[in-house]
C-alpha cells in the first residue's frame, strides 16, 4: 500500500501510510488503542474506502478488482461475522457457497478438524461461548483457503489450545500464507512474525525483521512510540 490516508470527520487516523509485505511473510503490527490498526485492516479488506492512496494485494488493485481481491482474503475481525440463529455448519456452508468453495462439505470438515471445532458445528451460534465463536470465525476465514490472511487481534477470547492451533496453522509450511496481523500481545506477536511493525501517528513508525530484532529493544521502542504518538 502507498500513501494511504483515512480520516473520520476532521480526525486523521492514517496519514500517508506505506507498507509492503513480501509474499509468504507474516507481518505483525503493533499499536496503541486508537492508533488505526482496525481502520487499516478495514481499508485492506475493502470495508472502508481510503481518502487517498492505493492498495494492491496479490497483484490485484482494491479499487478496480475488488471482488477478485476479496476472494484472496481471509479476514478475522473483532466481531465473529456469524449468524446467531444458524448452526456453525450452516454458517460455514453459507459463506462457502458465497465464495464458491468446491467440495464444500469436506472442506468444512477439514477446517473444523484443524481448529478442533467439529463438535460446535451442529450447535446454533447463539448457544456458543465467545471463544467457540472465535474458533468458528477463524474457520470461516480459512474455509476458502485464502492466500492472504488479515487478522485483527485474533487471539482475543481464544483459550490456550485454540491459540496453539492458530499459531500452528499460521506457521505451517504446507499452507504458507501471507499474514498481516494486529495484536497487543508483544511476546506472541514477535514469536509469530517474520516482520514486525509499530503503527503510531497514522504511519508505520518502525519496521524490522524479527530475525534481527531483540524483544526488549522492540518493547522499548514500542513504549516510546506510544508516548510520542499524537
Amino acid at each position, binding site marked *: 500500500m502507498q500513501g494511504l490516508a483515512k480520516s473520520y470527520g476532521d480526525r486523521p487516523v492514517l496519514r500517508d501510510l506505506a507498507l509492503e509485505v513480501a509474499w509468504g511473510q507474516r507481518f505483525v503490527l503493533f499499536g496503541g488503542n486508537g492508533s488505526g490498526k482496525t481502520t487499516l485492516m*478495514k481499508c485492506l*479488506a*475493502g*470495508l*472502508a*474506502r481510503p481518502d487517498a492512496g492505493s492498495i494492491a494485494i496479490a497483484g490485484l488493485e482494491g479499487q478496480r478488482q*475488488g*471482488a*477478485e481481491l*476479496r*476472494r484472496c*482474503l481471509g*479476514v478475522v*475481525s*473483532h*466481531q*465473529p*461475522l*456469524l*449468524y*446467531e*440463529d*444458524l448452526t456453525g455448519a*450452516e454458517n460455514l456452508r*453459507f*459463506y462457502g*457457497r*458465497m*465464495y*464458491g468453495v468446491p467440495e464444500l462439505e469436506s472442506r468444512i470438515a477439514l477446517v473444523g478438524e484443524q481448529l478442533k471445532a467439529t463438535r460446535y458445528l451442529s450447535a446454533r*451460534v447463539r448457544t456458543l461461548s465467545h471463544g467457540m465463536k472465535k474458533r468458528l470465525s477463524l474457520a*470461516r476465514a480459512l474455509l476458502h483457503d485464502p492466500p492472504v490472511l488479515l487478522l485483527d487481534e485474533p487471539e482475543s477470547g481464544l483459550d490456550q489450545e485454540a491459540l496453539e492451533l492458530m499459531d500452528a496453522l499460521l506457521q505451517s509450511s504446507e499452507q504458507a500464507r501471507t499474514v498481516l496481523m494486529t495484536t497487543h500481545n508483544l511476546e506472541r506477536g514477535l514469536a509469530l512474525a517474520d516482520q514486525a511493525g509499530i503503527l503510531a501517528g497514522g504511519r508505520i513508525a518502525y519496521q524490522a525483521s524479527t530475525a534481527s530484532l531483540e524483544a526488549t529493544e522492540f518493547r522499548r521502542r514500542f513504549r516510546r512510540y506510544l508516548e510520542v504518538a499524537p
Partner: protein
Amino acid sequence: MRDFLRPIFVLAWKDVLLELRTKDVVTTVLMFALLSMVTFNFAFSPSPDVVALVTPGILWVAFTFAGILGFNRAFALEKENGNLEGLLLCPVSRDVIYFGKLAGIFTFMAVMEALLVPFFAILYNLPVLDPKLLVVAALATLGFSGVGALFSAIAVNTRSREIMLPVLLLPVASPVVIAAVEATRAILDGASWGDVGRWLQLLTAFDVIFLILSAFVFGAVLEE
C-alpha cells in the same frame, strides 16, 4: 449468468432459513396484517358498494405496513455480529448483495400475501382468484420490495431505524401503492386486461427504473 444468480439464491435462502428458525417476522407481521383487516371490517358497514370502494385500500395498507415491519428486520439481522461486513467481504459485487436481499424480502412478502389474501377474501366476500390480481400483486410487491431493500439498508445505520424507514420509504414507494390500489379496485370491479393495462405499465416502469437505480446506489449506501 450462473455466477451472478447463484450467490443471489444463496443469500435469499439464508434469509429464508433464518426466518424459518426464528419465525420472528412472520408471526409479528401476520398478526399485524390480520388485526388491520379485522379492525377495518368493524370500522364500517361492509355493504357491497362500500366493500368495492375501500377494500383495495385496506388490502394494500395491510401489505404495506406489514412489509415495512419485515424490511426493518431484513438488515437488522445483518448488523448483529457484524454480518454485514461478512457479506461485504464475499467475492461478489454489491448489486448481487442487493438482489439477494431483495429476493429474500420478495419471498417473505409473497408468502405473507399468499397467507393473507384467502383470509381477506373470506372476510369481505370478494373474488380474488383472478390472474390479473396475481400479476398486479407480483409487480407491486417486486417494486415495493426493491425500494424497501434499499431504504432498509440506509435506515439500519440510523439510530431510530424503525421510524426512519417508513419516513424514507413511503414517499418513494407511493406510486407503487397507488397503482396497486387502483389496479386492484378495477380488477375487483370486473375490469379486463385492457382496463388495467395502464396501471400494469406504471408498475412495470416503476419496477424497472427503481430496481436499476437501487442496485446502482446500493454499493454507495453500504460504504462506511
